């Protein structure tokens, strides 16, 4: 059954074929923002690394290096402008998403506990109900948001403040900018793996491309969002009790 097992609603037509019920998840603006952010993030990471990794020295040299540095600045403008434009276009949705990614609850802790068994061994039973963004997605968002704030502040000061800020401060900014890069790029590697490579996570990529997700998948993975808080908890508790009895 599409959307995994256990509690999914089996929906098959008279011929027995599985019929997927698609429900909207991400708005068009949300998706454009996400992919624009992806493209500019990767462009910035690639162009920025030429000044970071000594083995990329040949790329950093001379006019080519100058062009890459200029590209980094151009991409930085787009990277910084995108979230601002998105917030102007969809202020309520942006605020809702922002609030939800920074909210930590007991289901997040349970999710972290169940993370390894689920992602490595496919054991879905223990997973706590999740909102529209699950704990991992929230963690990704928080790290990218905080990283971007660090990038923006340190980047702008290094861009326009060279010669004005004391050199000790500038040196610290270089290091902060690079640390933010290390953290966010590591986060990106994990995000890419879960979104694109991991066999169970196919639905995330579909919903980020087409804006929809299967109802069965949403029931499994985003119960708080699909059913609402009370119903989701009811199902979760009932299921936990059931499993407890199984063990005895």
């Amino acid at each position, binding site marked *: 059954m599409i959307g995994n097992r256990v509690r999914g609603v089996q929906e098959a037509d008279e011929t027995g074929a599985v019929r997927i019920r698609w429900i909207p998840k991400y708005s068009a603006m949300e998706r454009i923002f996400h992919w624009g952010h992806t493209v500019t993030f990767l462009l910035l990471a690639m162009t920025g690394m030429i000044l970071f990794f000594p083995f990329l020295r040949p790329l*950093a040299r001379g006019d080519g290096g100058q062009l890459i*540095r*200029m590209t980094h600045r151009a991409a930085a403008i787009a990277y910084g402008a995108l979230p601002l434009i998105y917030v102007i276009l969809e202020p309520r949705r942006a605020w809702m998403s922002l609030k939800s990614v920074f909210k930590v609850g007991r289901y997040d802790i349970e999710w972290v506990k169940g993370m390894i068994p689920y992602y490595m061994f496919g054991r879905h039973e223990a997973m706590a109900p999740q909102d529209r963004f699950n704990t991992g997605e929230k963690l990704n968002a928080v790290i990218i948001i905080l990283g971007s704030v660090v990038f923006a502040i340190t980047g702008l000061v290094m*861009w326009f403040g060279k010669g004005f800020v004391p050199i000790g401060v500038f040196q610290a900014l270089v*290091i902060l900018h690079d640390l933010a890069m290390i953290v966010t790029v590591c986060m990106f590697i994990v995000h890419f793996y879960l979104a694109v490579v991991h066999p169970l996570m196919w639905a995330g990529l579909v919903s980020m491309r087409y804006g929809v997700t299967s109802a069965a998948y949403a029931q499994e993975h985003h119960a708080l969002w699909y059913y609402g808080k009370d119903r989701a908890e009811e199902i979760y508790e009932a299921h936990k009790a059931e499993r407890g009895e199984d063990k005895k």
Partner: protein
Amino acid sequence: MSRVAMLIDESICMGCRGCQVACKQWNDLPAEQTTQSGTYENPPDLSAVTWTRVRFTELDQGDRVQWLFLTQGCFHCGNPACVEVCPTGALKRDPELGIVTVEKDLCNGCGYCSQFCPFSIPRLDTDVLSGEGKAFKCNFCQDRLSNGLIPACVKTCPSGAFAFGDREAMLGKGLGRVDLLRQAGFPNANLYGEHEMSGLGRLYVLKERPSLYGLPENPQYPAMANLWQNVVQPLGSLAFGAAALAVLGFYFVSRRNIKMEEVE
């Protein structure tokens, strides 16, 4: 040839700024448009087109005013931070002569050299918005040196304040002058650059404490450069490698354990 040094005796310098002019002339650098700021000092600072300049400091000593001159320029450190942080290899230190030079064609104008130099010597002509430009600084007239000549500023100095040659000889000469100055009523006379930054290539005989000339008393290799290059950069490679490996490992574990046929 062994390591070279420039010895500048600031007790002899008369502030004529002949060195500034000779530097501009030899290196084909344009003059700068400046405004009168109430001092003989001009231009106001080193720049991409002013690689050496005389700093004028008026030292008020109660009954008299002492004029301190300092011919600023690259120090050609024994342990140059600019060379270490340069991401292109444009900045390099000649292992034999010890001179620190910028290869213009390699420079991409990032400006790390200017931000990690403890003396703020390298200057950029970069456009603030686009970041296009290059770094410039004194190179001890590398072209002259390699043709058996001495730097233009040394050659031109009419007062004989400059000397240039083997660093050991310059140290000996400088220390001799310091002794003489101390006997002649300058108890604070000192030689600047003997040990600083693993020994500087630009040595000053000073009449007063270095700080009175606007020099750092105890210049240090920037700790941030060490942190950046020895900790943050390896950490970056390590973190990316670890993340990629972990993800790859997880992929194989989950491939083995999760049967998609059972899931769907």
